[in-house]
C-alpha cells in the first residue's frame, strides 16, 4: 500500500484514489502557499490580541483568545486547501 492510498483511506474528505494526486505543477504551488498563510494567521491573531489588550488594559486574556482564533483560522485554511485541492477540475462531489 502506497503512502498516498493510505492517506486517501484515512482522510475524512472522501475519496477515490485517482483524485488524490496533484495533477499539475500549479496544484503543488497552491499547496506551497499554505504554510505561510497558516503562520500569518497566528501572527495576525496575536497582533490583534496584543493591540486590544493594550487598549483595554487586561493583558494576557485577549492575547490568548485571539491567538486561539489565529490557530483556528490556520486550521480552517488547511481544511479549505485540502477540500479544494483534492477535488480537482470539476470532480467535486456534493
Amino acid at each position, binding site marked *: 500500500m502506497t503512502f498516498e492510498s493510505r492517506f486517501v483511506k484515512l482522510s475524512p474528505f472522501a475519496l477515490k484514489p485517482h483524485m488524490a494526486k496533484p495533477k499539475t505543477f500549479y496544484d503543488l504551488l*497552491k499547496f506551497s*502557499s499554505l504554510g*505561510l*498563510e497558516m503562520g*500569518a*494567521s497566528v501572527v*495576525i491573531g496575536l497582533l490583534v490580541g496584543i493591540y486590544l489588550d493594550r487598549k483595554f488594559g487586561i493583558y494576557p486574556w485577549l492575547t490568548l483568545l485571539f491567538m486561539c482564533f489565529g490557530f483556528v483560522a490556520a486550521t*480552517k*485554511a488547511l481544511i479549505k486547501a485540502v477540500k479544494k485541492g483534492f477535488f480537482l477540475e470539476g470532480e467535486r462531489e456534493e
Partner: protein
Amino acid sequence: MTAETFIILDHTPLYSALEKIEGIDPAPIIHAGLVSLLLVGLAITVNRSYRRNQRVLPEEKTFTVTNFMEMAIGGLFEFMQQTMGDNAKKFLPLIGTTGIFILISNLLGTIPGFDPPTSNLNTTLACAIVIVVATHYVGIRTHGVKYIKHFLGPVLWLAPLMFVIEIIGHLARILSLSFRLFGNMFGDHMVLGIFMGMVPLLIPVAFMGLGVFVSVVQAFVFTLLSILYISGALEEAH
C-alpha cells in the same frame, strides 16, 4: 547592507532630491518608477507594432517584443480561463498588470547595478493590498449584501465566532502574499550581493540562474493566488 553594492540609480539627481524628504527610502521608489517606465515603453512598442501591421497577428520572422508580449498575455489569459471561465476577460487587466509588474521588478534584480523594487516590503504590500481590496470589491459587486455569507460559515450560532476567524484569515492573506514575495526577493538579492562581494568570478552565475528561477516562480505564485482569491469571492457561499 553588508556587501558594498553599487546601485546606478543611487547616483542620479532624482535620488538626492528624494533623499531630502524625511522618512522615506528613495531606492524602491525610483526603481518602481523605472519599472513603470519600462512597462509604458513596452506597451507603446507593442501597440505601435500592431497599428503598423493592421492585423491581429503580426507575421514576424524573428522573436520580438511583440511576440513575447503576445505569448505572455495569451498564456495568462488561457490560464485564467481555466480557473475563472468567462470572468477571465474582466479581470485580465488587473491581474495581468500586477503579474507583469512583479515579474519585471523581480527580473530587474538580476541585472547588476539595480535593486529590485520588490525587495522592499512597501512595494509588495501595495500590490497585495490592491489585490485583496479588489477581491472584496468584486465580492460586494457580484453578491451585494449576501457577500457577508462568505464570512459567516454554515452554522448560525457560530456565526459571530466565524466572522472574527474569517477576518483574521483574510488579513493573513495580505500578510502572506506580501511577505512571501518580499522575503524571496530580498533573500535572493542578499545572497547574490554577498557572493558577488566574496567571489566576483563565476560563482555568482549560479545564483543569478537561481535568481531568474525564483523571480519567475514568485511572480507566477502571486498571480495564481490573486486569481484564486478573486474566483473565491466570485463563487456562491456554501
